């Protein structure tokens, strides 16, 4: 699988299995992938070497996904953002995935998702 431009992705998820497996899938699809275990590290890595797309979980230690999305939107307005969540968690009556959209994610994926659909979303964001 080849593509014209290698795009750089940053995957933030507190589950090592999740981010490692996504890394393999995404690298196979020709992307360059960096991994962060939480939102705070993701922001640090982005500052050191910006990615084109952030793929982030919603519930994470340190800085959670919503805060991370908000921070990226302010500091890196051109970075596209894909939010992933198990969904269904209500905080104060709001479903979390919806707020991810409201906080400025370009696309949301509900876990578990078929990696094909993640690749599809990535293509649509190009």
């Amino acid at each position, binding site marked *: 699988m080849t593509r014209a431009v290698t795009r750089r992705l940053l995957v933030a998820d*507190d*589950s090592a*299995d*999740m981010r*490692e*497996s*996504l890394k*393999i*899938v995404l690298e*196979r699809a020709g992307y360059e992938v960096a991994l962060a275990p939480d939102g705070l590290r993701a922001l640090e890595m982005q500052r050191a070497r910006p990615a084109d797309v952030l793929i982030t979980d919603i*519930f*994470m*230690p340190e800085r*959670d996904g919503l805060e991370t999305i908000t921070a990226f939107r302010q500091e890196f307005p051109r970075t596209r953002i894909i939010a*992933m*969540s*198990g*969904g*269904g*968690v*209500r905080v104060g009556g709001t479903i979390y995935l919806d707020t991810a959209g409201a906080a400025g994610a370009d696309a949301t994926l*509900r*876990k*578990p*998702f*078929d*990696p*094909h659909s993640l690749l599809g979303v990535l293509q649509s964001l190009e």
Partner: protein
Amino acid sequence: MLQQQTVDYLEGLLEGFVAYDGDWVMTYMNAAAERLLGRRRDDVLGKTWHQAFPHAVGNEVDQMYQRVMRSREAERMEYFYAHYGRWLEISASPVRSGGVAVYFRDISDREALNRVGRALASELDLERVVQAATDAATELCGAQFGAFFYNVTNDAGESYMLYTLSGVPREEFAKFPMPRNTAVFAPTFAGEGIVRSDDITRDARYGRSAPHHGMPRGHLPVRSYLAVPVVSRSGEVLGGLFFGHAETGVFTERAERIVAGIASQAAIALDNARLFAQAKAAGEKLREADRRKDEFLATLAHELRNPLAPIRTGLHLLHISPPGSEPAAQARAMMERQLNHLIRLVDDLLEVSRISTGKIELRRSRLELAAAVLSAVETVRPMMEAAHHRLDISLPPEPVMLEGDFVRLAQVVANLLSNAAKYTDPGGRVALSVRREQGEAVVSVTDSGVGIAPEQLPQVFDMFSQAEGTRYRAQGGLGIGLALARRLAELHGGRVEARSEGAGKGSEFRVYLPLA
């Protein structure tokens, strides 16, 4: 006309008696009627009913008299006579020789008590009950001012005294301390009985207690004094009603009776208010439990989905990777881990169901506590190592023998240890100790972790109560570990305890178990 003996009977009555002939002319009025109606018989005898009492023409009493005169059948009514400001019970009977005989009595006190009783019975708010009782009693007994001192218990179980006032602004009393167990007040607060004095300053009990030796300076002057304990059905003294007047001899036996009546009605109302408050609190607790269950279900959905995501990604990897390749092996290992995680969640869920239906059964045997504890340590070791925690273990030199379920006891300790690991930042310290203390075995797990805020301490062992804002720390947990630990400890006849100096200051969890 009447025999002297009959006259003696009539004059001796406490109730009023008046007779009219067939032409409505008043032929007799007894002394009680003079007193109750405030009229002298010389003024009214020989006059007709309407001449003697023009204010009554056409009123309900008049209508009743007219009916009795016509129908020759006796009637009775209770009537608020605005003219006299009294409730009267009036009976009118036909007289054989013609005319009507009327017999009446003052039921104002009874009516007043009924009115207060109805008002109190319909009130479930404690403060309004005591205020209504104080106001009614102060008015009915003729006091210048009255006070209701009553005991309440706050949420923390501490008892303290509050008061309401009637007939005097609160500022008048705000500067005084609460009444203490002095000779004058003690009989009331001990529920011993009513104190009624025409002049309390001349009472033997008065002025004997330091520091004031009587009323404190600036106190409203009290000579006439009346104090009635308010005692619940269970015999508990709820408080006392106190009345004062600057003049002597104000409180009559009647006043005492009325206040005693109000006190017993207030006691019932206070009991009701308390029961109502308890029922309300129980309802709120149920709603809170319900809310937590809802949250748990949402958490559960999330937690069950979470391992599914990498499993699905793993499947995809297996599809696109050659069999036996490094990525395929990685995917398989990862899927197995996530599957095990999923199984643990489902097992936890089954435990929740077993706990809530009371279906946990212990397989008891005689066992050495340290062995169960070490088995728990093995279970959590990978977790401790992953978080780079240091785990210190201290076991007693002598074996501590228990009668219990080895697997379940190990589970209790494992739950406490994994809780400590989760709620402590990487590289923290966790200490585990087993000891004997006052005939009990004590397992203690101390951590250097995030600690527990004082307001959350009482709930840490409740089902689904992951501390607010720390959910991610549970790392895929359902918030049932501590609840399960408590339940299992209780099934063993033991108990659990949580201590923390506060947020950020670490925690200690203890399990107490009976020795074999």
